């Protein structure tokens, strides 16, 4: 077959029905140091080992259809991130969780899953807000000071160039869940494709403006504790968002 004929055939394939599992997961331990692409590969391979009926994308290089709500940076733990896994048949959510967990590397764990119709809005597009927990000596007062500042200008690398950016508008507020412990703090920040702030930039602003020492900023334990849709304060955890079906 000629290359051109083959290309034509590939684009003619029809749409496949997706049975989506929307699941939440946690990561800790060794897997915290994986970049986003490696993390995706870990999930893909675990699904294949578990022999789950995953749906593959069409085209030249078929990939398992998995969408993560928001990439997780290297060094960030999570207690509750989300991904949509497309299957080619209906699947029991509890069985999905159990089977996948048996094949994930140590440190990655599916918490919950539910079957949803194929969504009209990508899981990525509905994320607006994230909550984080930072743990380091004296972090609470530094974070409180940061939130009292008008601006927090930090240097960000964008396309190989240094860029000054104000991250203060991207920090929302301390969380209710945040207790009085001086060495930990929980807060909300904007997240997602429109407005997003990386935890390492927040930490560098704490060094620059709030008297945090650089070494303890670098050693701060960073945990994402949740991802939400909606406008703060009326935010909803991603897996509780009502799904608009594609059709």
């Amino acid at each position: 077959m000629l290359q051109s004929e083959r290309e034509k055939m590939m684009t003619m394939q029809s749409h496949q029905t997706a049975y989506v599992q929307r699941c939440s997961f946690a990561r800790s331990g060794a897997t915290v140091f994986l970049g986003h692409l490696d993390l995706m590969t870990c999930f893909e391979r675990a699904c294949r080992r578990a022999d789950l009926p995953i749906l593959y994308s069409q085209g030249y290089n078929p990939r398992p259809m998995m969408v993560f709500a928001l990439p997780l940076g290297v060094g960030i733990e999570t207690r509750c991130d989300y991904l949509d896994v497309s299957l080619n048949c209906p699947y029991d959510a509890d069985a999905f969780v159990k089977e996948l967990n048996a094949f994930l590397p140590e440190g990655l764990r599916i918490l919950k899953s539910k079957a949803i119709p194929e969504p009209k809005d990508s899981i990525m597009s509905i994320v607006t807000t994230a909550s984080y927990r930072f743990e380091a000596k004296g972090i609470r007062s530094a974070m409180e000071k940061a939130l009292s500042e008008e601006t927090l200008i930090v240097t960000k690398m964008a396309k190989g160039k240094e860029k000054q950016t104000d991250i203060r508008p991207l920090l929302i507020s301390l969380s209710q869940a945040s207790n009085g412990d001086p060495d930990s703090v929980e807060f909300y920040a904007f997240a997602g494709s429109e407005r997003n702030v990386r935890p390492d930039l927040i930490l560098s602003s704490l060094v620059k403006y709030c008297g945090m020492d650089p070494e303890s900023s670098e050693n701060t334990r960073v945990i994402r504790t949740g991802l939400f849709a909606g406008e703060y304060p009326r935010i909803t955890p991603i897996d509780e968002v009502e799904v608009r079906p594609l059709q």
Partner: protein
Amino acid sequence: MKQYPVPLSKSDLMSVESPARYVGGEFNAVIKEDMMEELEKTGKTSYVRFAFCFPDIYEIGMSNLALQILYHVLNESDFVACERAFSPWLDMDKILREKNIPLYSQETKTPLCDFDILGFTLGYEMCYTNVLQMMDLGKIPLLAKDRGEDDPVICCGGPCAYNIEPMADFFDIAMMGEGEEMILELSEKVREYKLSKNTDHPMTRAELLRNCDAIEGIYVPSLYDVSYFPDDASAKAAGAPARGAYVVPSDDGVKKVIKKRIIKDLDTCTYPTSPVVSNLRVVHDRGYLEVFRGCIRGCRFCQAGFIYRPVREKSVEVLCEQGRQLEKNTGFDEMGLLSLATSDYTQFPELAENLLSTFEGHHTSLSLPSLRLDSFSLDLMEKVQSTRKSGLTFAPEAGTQRLRDVINKNIKEEDIFSALRLAFMGGWSTVKLYFMLGLPTETDEDVLGIADLAKRIEKLYFDIGRETGQKMRRLDITVSTSLFIPKPFTPFQWEPQNSKEELIRKQRLLKDNLRSRNIHYAWHDFDSSVWEVVLARGDRRLAPVLLEGYRSGRFFDAWDDHFKLEKWVEILEKHGLTIEDFAREFSEEETLPWDHISVGVNKKFLLSERHKAHAETTTPSCREHCSGCGAAAWGVGECFAKRNAASGVSADGTAMKEGDA
């Protein structure tokens, strides 16, 4: 599986290039929890703790099949616990040194000095200095003679172990040949040694090494005396032996010749169908099926072609079953067939067909390296590569038929052109051609032959376009040259290496004659090839050189950016040696530093092959005709496969006698 904490702060991990290399936690990694509990309670264990060390970075080490095979073999046994360790990259190396943190294992983060055995796999000479880095960071004395009763036993294996002389002062033990059985026999001896420490008659390290010498395939360098005799006519007249490096047992109790080990039946030999799956993407990110060992071809420059003899195949059934398990246990979406020449597998069409149907509908692709191109393999590539047309690769190695005959590379121009005709008609437009510069007897005519071949391929492509009236894509021919390095245990082990100046001249000559918008020329770094020959054909005089080089910060020599030839030459000369001592032509009379090692192919055969090379005479493949190299002495594999009557000599008693080196 319990996770053991990394002895590094988060900021240290976050400051290095790829922190995931240093944290472990991979799927299918093995931790023997009962051992860890025992250690926690009593501080001791009766398990033999084995650290499998790969002297390069994690992503390269995790792509290594030897690591996966031996890790599996060791952990399958009930008395060994094997963990992995890799060379930390320069950024992590710096942190470990500054903070005085010993290099640790991936699984339980145990410092290397707390293991009973360290086993290094030596796949390429340029990793030698990384062996020293790992031992040093692992808090282990570098020289074997400086190690005491409580230090680990340091051993090595792999293709470079066959001439371990340059590294002999650093290793306690070198293993010759395939390790599946030998490594357990060695571990058993270490276990006896370890257990004896709790008795009234503890065994000494010296006794342990003696016991290991009794194992076939194991070489204990410290039990041999070495003397060097220069090329000195007057000394020779006075009765001195011929030039050479003589490695002789220090007493009668030590074996004179160390014979390599092989696995006779690969079908029944254990194979890792649940290899450790890296969380991080590695160099060769796929599952491997080892199809056969050895090669029937006998290209005269190729060390692998001789040291892995005799050819032994796995059956189609075993391979398909292993493939099925491998896919299931790893989740890899690509399976690679591994051997020196996939097309030489006798049942290749059946294997390919069966594997394709095994993986059908799983979105698992099959990677088929080292295929000989013909209509069958092109058809197969169409099937396995689903859509994308990747490049076609040919390795003619030399530019003229004359030189191809010299090196015994059985590839004919007619074959290349007929395969390319088919491929070009089928839409392929990327061709890679691999050659070597500096081969024995090479003339400028041979060098220009490379350019000529590339240009005729270019012409063929456009001729086909004209003939068929097809709209052709842009053609991309890459000509790639590496440099000939004479290697031990090949017919070219005596050959000189061209000087750097001569190689540069030849490269320039080729470059000037390859000017075309469709042809790219890629070449290999000269400097590292110059040093590689020193290490490949070196002897024990190099130990102080390597030690001084390492001490002055020279390691990661396999990485061109870090390799500095001039520094090494400086150190070499300081120790009274030159590049020429190792790059020169070795005389056929001289005793070579590796003559006390037997790979099963005898020296007489290698010598006759060398003479045939200079006479431009080829040798048929093992499948066509047994040439009596000596490997038939094992009584297995290709040497004893049924040949058709026309093929003449079969492996018989004569070959067996010759095989006994």
